[in-house]
């Protein structure tokens, strides 16, 4: 176990290094002059002064090492936009995103569990068929279009739910936030629900064909016990890793959903920063979300090895 943990931890270091390097490379190895979008940049002197002030005139390796040194301490510099430290901007937006993605993740886990167990137990039934069709739709519908449809149907036509932001102007209570949360979280959960349902269903079906399930049935246990305490728990184990892999997809989805619903999270911050070429914020967010997903995967793997003692990490 200790060996496994050590090996797993050792993987994180090169992963982080690759992450840092990619984030740096995207911004610095691509054409385009930083500062060119600055309104005052029409004057060459101003442009040069600005670039010197921002440290953009130094050689690339120097910039890289310097940036890396600060980035590992989560110091991503200050925003081009308002001069505030990038990490502050990220951290103040983080709770909103955590609320949104957390709710979406919980929703998709819950719904997909129900759907997957039902369709694997009643395999090839009408329900199974409907669940399969649903998951194909969930995987194929563009999230932003689903968001627009949700806004039109629930926000405009039925006028049931708020569609913009996290709180109403005159109300910042928890109930109000919850009402604002329903649509974005529901849409964000769609794709995850579809993917998880398909994955869980096939691992449930696999497990239901195992010898020990037949044994459990043979010794006269009720179908309920067989499904829930024997099959389900084992099927669940294999899906822990898939949860870790879903994190980056969730973050990506959050960019779109937060933009459409004007949800004040880091996804929207990212889109704003990309649009205004606020490079420190972009790089900071890349690294920050990357670290979160790498740690998420690490936790998923550790959980996996805890719940399934057979697991041995190769390589």
């Amino acid at each position, binding site marked *: 176990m200790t060996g496994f943990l050590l090996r797993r931890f050792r993987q994180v270091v*090169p992963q982080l290094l690759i992450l840092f390097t990619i984030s740096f490379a995207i911004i610095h190895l691509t054409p385009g002059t930083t500062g060119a979008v600055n309104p005052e940049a029409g004057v060459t002197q101003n442009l040069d002064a600005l670039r010197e002030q921002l440290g953009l005139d130094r050689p690339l390796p120097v910039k890289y090492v310097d940036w890396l040194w600060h980035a590992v301490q989560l110091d991503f510099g200050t925003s081009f936009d308002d001069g505030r430290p990038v990490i502050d901007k990220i951290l103040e937006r983080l709770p909103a995103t955590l609320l949104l993605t957390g709710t979406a993740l919980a929703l998709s886990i819950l719904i997909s569990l129900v759907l997957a167990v039902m369709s694997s137990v009643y395999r090839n039934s009408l329900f199974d068929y409907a669940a399969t069709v649903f998951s194909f739709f969930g995987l194929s*519908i*563009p999230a932003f279009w689903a968001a627009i449809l949700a806004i039109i149907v629930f926000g405009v036509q039925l006028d049931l739910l708020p569609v913009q932001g996290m709180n109403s102007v005159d109300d910042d209570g928890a109930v109000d936030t919850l009402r604002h949360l329903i649509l974005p979280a529901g849409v964000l959960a769609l794709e995850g629900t579809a993917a998880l349902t398909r994955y869980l269903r096939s691992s449930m079906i696999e497990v239901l064909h195992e010898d020990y399930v037949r044994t459990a049935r043979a010794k006269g246990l009720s179908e309920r016990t067989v499904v829930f305490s024997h099959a389900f728990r084992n099927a669940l184990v294999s899906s822990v890793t898939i949860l870790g892999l879903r994190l980056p997809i969730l973050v990506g989805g959050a960019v*779109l959903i937060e933009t459409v619903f004007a949800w004040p999270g880091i996804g929207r911050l990212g889109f704003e920063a990309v649009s205004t070429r606020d490079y420190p914020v972009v790089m900071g967010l890349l690294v920050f*979300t990357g670290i979160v*997903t790498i740690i998420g995967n690490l936790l998923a793997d550790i959980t996996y090895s805890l719940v399934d003692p057979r697991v041995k990490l190769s390589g």
Partner: protein
Amino acid sequence: MASAAAVPANVQRAPSELTRSWRRFKSNKLSVAGAVVLLLIALGAIVGPPLARHFLGLTPYDLSCTSFAPMSRDHPLGCDPLGRDLLARLLAGGRVSLIVGLSVAIGSTGIGLIIGAIAGYFGGPVDSMLMRFTDTMLALPTFFILLSAAAVLGPSLVNTVIIISVLEWTTTARLVRGEFLVIREKEFVTAARAVGLTNLRIVRHILLNVVPVLVVAGTLAVASGILVESALSFLGLGTQPPQASWGYMLSSVQNFVFTEPLLGVFPGLMIMITVLAVNFVGEGLRDALDPRLVKR
């Protein structure tokens, strides 16, 4: 059904692998339906724009229609906020989606094939290094990188394809590597080594056995390519105006949810139907070409 297909002339001959795959594919009704729908969409994208121009006088750039004009005889689907015909734009947008989907499939499976083949064929430290890299790519918030790269490189069709390809090869690489690891232990590879073939020749022999995996991975890449392109274009970082694309057509819809709720129905529907059809075809291909492949 299977016996009816055999003709007397080759009764003894077992059906070829390709024939059997085709039969397996045909037996999946959803996949066949998906293939038909895809063919129709492709047809619409290829011959649709010239036909619309020739017979209805519709082009995707002509601003002569009234803004938000409802469906009419001259404009079968109505017009967009700038007074451009929606049908013509829908057909032109189909070209963009299909071109991006196919290019991404070729690009990403190409990269994935090279990396997966090198890792799987050589194994050892090369393998673990490349796979560590692949795992890291999987852990990255890809969509966000896409956005940043698109903004920095400048949004365009070509850049969109390149960026998506560079970020979407991981699944292919892992699948190809897995296949290589199994196949390189087979007798024919040992035999090829024994007669002194070069690594490159041996890899070429193995490659033929990887084709099914590539086809399936490529199909799924078409689906994700179309979805990602539409999302990028929706955010204004993909296909650039005035070029029509389904994602870009949806970007203006947001401003008219109160007045013109039906504006975004068709582009979104087209994206969903296309991706759905591709996914169904991919599912059928997977079952048909390689029943062993793990389901997603």
